[in-house]
């Protein structure tokens, strides 16, 4: 029953034909909506810092890249829905830990919260992480079975007429690597997961079997679910991303209000760490006031150690 990013709908590990239309029908429900934000929005910085922290933790803890990808998806959707006006290291840290914890539970990965906190360099009190999880769950309306580009890989590959089946795995691996990188590319925010999957697969095919690229492109363009224009635009962005080697950095132009260094370099001052901090005050305001409930209001009473 664990959640599989490549197969988000079916609990039984099979690819149903009917599932394809269900996937395309609901992919837009899981899109972050950063495009509506001003470029100076502090959430872009929070996002950048969160991604950097996740990538650092991932190399330290050696957890599954799919799990990390899922955690970033939760962070993106959380930041799309919540008005956050403050950029503080501890907000990034608790957001990252709680998102990783949720992603680990969904993918059945055994993640030790204490190890993660140690790696992240902060120990929260016992209630804080479950409460942050709850806040994320409420914000995401419990829609944790994210539909991501990985969900469309199998379908898009089925459109290719791969003569040599030994190429299937290398192609899928390379396309997956490209998809992991696309999370860092802000220009790809506007594209649906299916379009990103198709673009990544085409780029992978172009690298591994360039002679067949045009027939693959024709096959994918003919697919009823994909808009050719969108596909061509996204393909250009992914290509540009690969050429420029921007596979693991984030466009930081929107973060001019902050020091350019990574969150991990930020030193917490003692006074900041010891001061009781509220997440329910000005730092995170809920968009939907209906969701406001006193007994659920998120509060970090204190941060024990930075």
């Amino acid at each position, binding site marked *: 029953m664990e959640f599989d990013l490549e197969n988000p*709908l079916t609990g039984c590990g099979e690819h149903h034909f*009917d599932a394809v239309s269900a996937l395309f029908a609901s992919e837009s429900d899981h899109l972050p909506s950063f495009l509506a934000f001003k470029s100076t929005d502090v959430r872009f910085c929070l996002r950048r810092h969160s991604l950097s922290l996740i990538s650092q933790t991932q190399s330290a803890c050696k957890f599954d890249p799919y799990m990390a990808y899922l955690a970033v998806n939760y962070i993106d959707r959380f930041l799309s829905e919540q008005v956050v006006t403050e950029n503080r290291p501890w907000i990034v840290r608790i957001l990252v830990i709680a998102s990783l914890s949720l992603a680990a*539970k969904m993918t059945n990965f055994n993640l030790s919260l204490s190890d993660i906190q140690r790696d992240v360099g902060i120990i929260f009190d016992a209630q804080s992480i479950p409460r942050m999880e709850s806040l994320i769950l409420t914000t995401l309306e*419990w829609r944790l*079975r994210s539909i991501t580009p990985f969900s469309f890989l199998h379908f898009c590959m089925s459109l290719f007429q791969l003569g040599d089946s030994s190429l299937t795995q290398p192609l899928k691996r390379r396309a997956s690597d490209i998809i992991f990188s696309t999370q860092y590319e802000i220009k790809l925010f506007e594209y649906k997961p299916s379009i990103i999957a198709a673009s990544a697969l085409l780029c992978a095919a172009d690298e591994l079997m360039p002679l067949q690229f045009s027939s693959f492109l024709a096959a994918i363009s003919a697919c009823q679910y994909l808009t050719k224009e969108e596909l061509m635009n996204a393909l250009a962005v992914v290509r540009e991303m690969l050429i420029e080697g921007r596979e693991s950095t984030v466009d930081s132009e929107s973060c001019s209000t902050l020091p350019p260094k990574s969150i991990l370099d930020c030193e917490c001052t003692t006074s900041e760490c010891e001061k009781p901090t509220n997440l329910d005050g000005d730092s995170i305001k809920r968009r939907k006031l209906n969701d406001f409930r006193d007994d659920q209001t998120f509060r970090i009473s204190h941060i024990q150690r930075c």
Partner: protein
Amino acid sequence: MEKYEKLEKVGEGTYGKVYKAKDKATGQLVALKKTRLEMDEEGIPPTALREISLLQMLSNSLYIVRLLCVEQIDKNGKPLLYLVFEYLDTDLKKFVDSHRKGPNPRPLPPSLIQSFLYQLCKGVAHCHSHGVLHRDLKPQNLLVDKEKGILKIADLGLGRAFTVPIKSYTHEIVTLWYRAPEVLLGSTHYSTAVDMWSVGCIFAEMVRRQALFPGDSEFQQLLHIFRLLGTPTEKQWPGVSSLRDWHVYPKWEPQNLASAVPALGPDGVDLLTKMLQYDPADRISAKAALDHPYFDSLDKSQF
């Protein structure tokens, strides 16, 4: 839970008490289901997380009872989860009962049976396309809006996280009437066909206003089925005699299914026959059922 005003207990669901309640802010009626899931220091348990997110994903269909939100409350320091569903005024069991008993017994209008069955197949097809089996379809789990003629599937998918429903919350035996023969015979690999068997039984019950196979034990349940449809043979259902709970049963000949549902026309009988095939591989799928000629006279534009 101050957000809601509890109005009355509307049932003991398989997984806990269900209350009708009103959202104080909006006046919207909701069904509150308390779960017995408790959160520990690790936060929400993974199984609950997966089940509820699955339920949330399925509830985007018009034919599935909508999960409006999940409320987490503290009770004596222990966090509890409430699932908040949309409220519908009755269920198919009560609706059929009201046509059998009471001041004005009368058959269900054939066009309503047709429409309810279509909506049921739509909902089941939606679950199946998402890889989810219901496993416990029965009239009590189908909620009905009498005024609008709407039917929606409830009590979905919580089977695994919320413990196996052998006995319900109130220790009432879970009904066997809608259970597929492969489940009764102890098959370990069952598929979407188990739900289609239940749909067939529910279809027949709407026509008859009483259950098609009202068994009170697993053995009796099988005998009810065999007496009407004939004792299954290896030819009809390859592998049946190797199923775990297969015994030697009296050899009944199949009866005419139409005689069990005399009010149903030939197209309806044909669809019912396809839903009640012994071999799960031969049983009609929900998606194929939607295209069956029985629904030809239905105005599908409304769905």
